[in-house]
């Protein structure tokens, strides 16, 4: 139980080591699902258009699909290690370039959704837990359930109709007004950061203005999870032993609730953020489609529609890696915040 120097370093090393088999399994799953599945990439990408068998064979050989699966699997793993996610059959682009180009918009949207969910979910959850079984609590729980139940695209369409078409408060779709951001050099590939970098505040505000509706739509998908978790945590924390002990020392009720209750109830939020990343990324596919947001999700749908197996496999691989890495990072951040986790 004693404090050892470097315990944090050891924890991080352990956590990274733990992620490796997970990544391996993920990559294998992606490969199996997309490559072993019926149909092969070349004939699939040809779509309805009839190609001659020779032509197909030629393309297959060029792409290496005529080799044994196990060799292809080895190549795939080796490529992923080098961050090579293949080349799109439909657009001839490197998938890694596509990720760089479109990833920024998805990061912006997902971050916006997460921030919205946290800003709304934490206070609502804390109040609901503090005043358990009050009218507000009942309202908060129903709100969380309904927002979780309503699909992203229904909420998105509704928001578009109301706030964009009818009221005109927000733009209907897209990440910016047309052409406005063409001159911004791609430094981070996240438009809003690039605009800040070159001090183009008009673009920054324009992106934020476009972001509000999709971010709120995506945020509503996960806000219920935060409300519920924060509420339950607070209720359990306030029943806890150290809270009773603090009361026994005559700590003011307000301090008990805020310093011992809120603070401790919010620690697991970080873990839950990690768990929501998957939901957030899945939801962003639908949000991007609904709001015509130029991110990876929209790109993925386009690749799927053109039956571009290679690009789909590349993107899915990348997204899987992102999920694993983020959940690992979250665990490490958690260890930094909560001293108990390291032991």
């Amino acid at each position, binding site marked *: *139980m*004693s*404090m050892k120097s470097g315990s944090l370093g050891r924890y991080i090393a352990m956590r990274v080591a733990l992620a490796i088999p997970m990544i391996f399994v993920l990559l294998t799953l992606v490969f199996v699902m997309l490559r072993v599945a019926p149909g092969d990439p070349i004939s699939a990408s040809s779509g309805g258009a009839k190609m001659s068998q020779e032509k197909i064979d030629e393309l297959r050989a060029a792409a290496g699909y005529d080799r044994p699966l196990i060799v292809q699997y080895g190549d795939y793993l080796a490529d992923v290690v080098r961050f090579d996610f293949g080349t799109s059959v439909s657009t001839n682009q490197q998938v890694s370039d596509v990720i760089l180009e479109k990833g920024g918009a998805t990061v912006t949207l997902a971050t916006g959704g997460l921030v919205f969910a946290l800003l709304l979910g934490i206070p609502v959850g804390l109040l609901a837990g503090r005043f358990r079984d009050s009218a507000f609590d009942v309202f908060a729980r129903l709100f969380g359930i309904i927002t979780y139940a309503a699909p992203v695209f229904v909420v998105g369409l509704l928001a578009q109709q109301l706030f964009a078409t009818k009221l005109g408060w927000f733009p209907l779709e897209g990440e910016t007004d047309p052409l406005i951001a063409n001159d911004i050099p791609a430094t981070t590939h996240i438009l809003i950061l690039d605009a800040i970098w070159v001090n183009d505040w008009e673009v920054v505000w324009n992106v934020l203005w476009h972001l509000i509706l999709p971010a709120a739509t995506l945020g509503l998908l996960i806000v219920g999870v935060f409300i519920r978790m924060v509420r339950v945590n607070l209720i359990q924390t306030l029943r*806890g*032993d*150290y809270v*009773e*002990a*603090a*009361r*026994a*020392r*005559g*700590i*003011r*009720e307000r*301090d008990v609730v805020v*310093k*011992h209750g809120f*603070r*401790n109830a919010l*620690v697991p939020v970080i873990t839950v953020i990690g768990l929501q990343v998957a939901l957030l990324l899945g939801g962003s596919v639908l949000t991007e489609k609904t709001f015509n947001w130029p991110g990876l999700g929209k790109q993925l749908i386009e690749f799927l529609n053109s039956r571009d197996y290679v690009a789909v496999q590349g993107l899915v691989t990348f997204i899987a890696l992102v999920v694993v890495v983020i959940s690992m990072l979250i665990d490490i951040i958690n260890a930094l915040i*909560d*001293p*108990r986790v390291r*032991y």
Partner: protein
Amino acid sequence: MTTANGTDSTTRTGSGTSRDTTAPVLAARDLRVWYGSERGPVAAVDGVTFDVRPGETLGLVGESGCGKSTLGRGVLGLLPPGAAVDGEVRFAGKNLVDLSARQLQQLRGPELGLIFQEPMTRLNPLMRVSEHFEEALRTHNGDLTKDEIRTRALDALRGMGIPASRYESFPHEFSGGMRQRIMIALALVLRPAFVVADEPTTALDVLVEAQIIQILADLRRNFDTALVLITHNLGIVAEACDRVAVMYAGHIVEQGDAREVFANPQHPYTQALMRSTISLSTTGLHYIPGSPPDLAHPPAGCRFHPRCPKAMKVCAQEAPPEVLLPNGTRNTCWLPVPDMTTADGRRPLEVEEISVADEA
């Protein structure tokens, strides 16, 4: 005080030691603490009267669920929602039962302290030891400077054998015994006049237990703190308590000088309790047949009568009086006062009646 009076048995057996004449720090009269439950009110503490004087330790013993812990928390006003307190708890000229939540909160800490059974989970895991002390001292002594807080906290910790170098550590870096000593230091840094220690050693191993008991003994010697020591360990009572109160099903059935009660237990429950105690001289294992009553529906009359080997007819009908014996022991029982009952009432309770009463 003990040394002044010596250990002369006559002084002790008479209830007139000089300690008894000083005004009690805390005096409870007919204290009742009832819980709400799905099955209706639970009379966890149901009419309890006792005094605790400065520097005195009152041991509170009884089986699990007899209301010991509820009594301790009820005095400090630390009760779950739905619970109610009735009666009188006189402390520093005030009746604690009548105080508002805010007034009680201000008394807890500087006047009334509580030490818990389970030290492992009683410190906020995200707060350093130092932050716990700063919070407690700031709340009750708003004008202390940071240095003064540090000095007082380190003094209190040193008194418990926790070195100053551990002041900035987190709770999980301490062992159970150390955490309990930190909890005690945290309770004592505010110098309360009255402390309830709720089974402070139950969760700790034997060596640590002796250490904690020693600390509590020093405490009343050095600060004249009045202590209620809740325990089911009769050894601790014999060792560390001046007086003892035996609780059964929400009632104090017997209280008096600790040695007197141990040497000459009066109430059948106390006698049974002593018999079930395991010691080196134990020849067989004794237990009390039956189980403690459901406090949502306690038996009529004496609550112990369904399990009492000496139960009489009257015991099942009427609550017994509190009988003050010449040695100062108070025994709540019909047995010492046969002339207060009829001859019929003194007839032993039939076995069938016992089982019926037990079921009720």
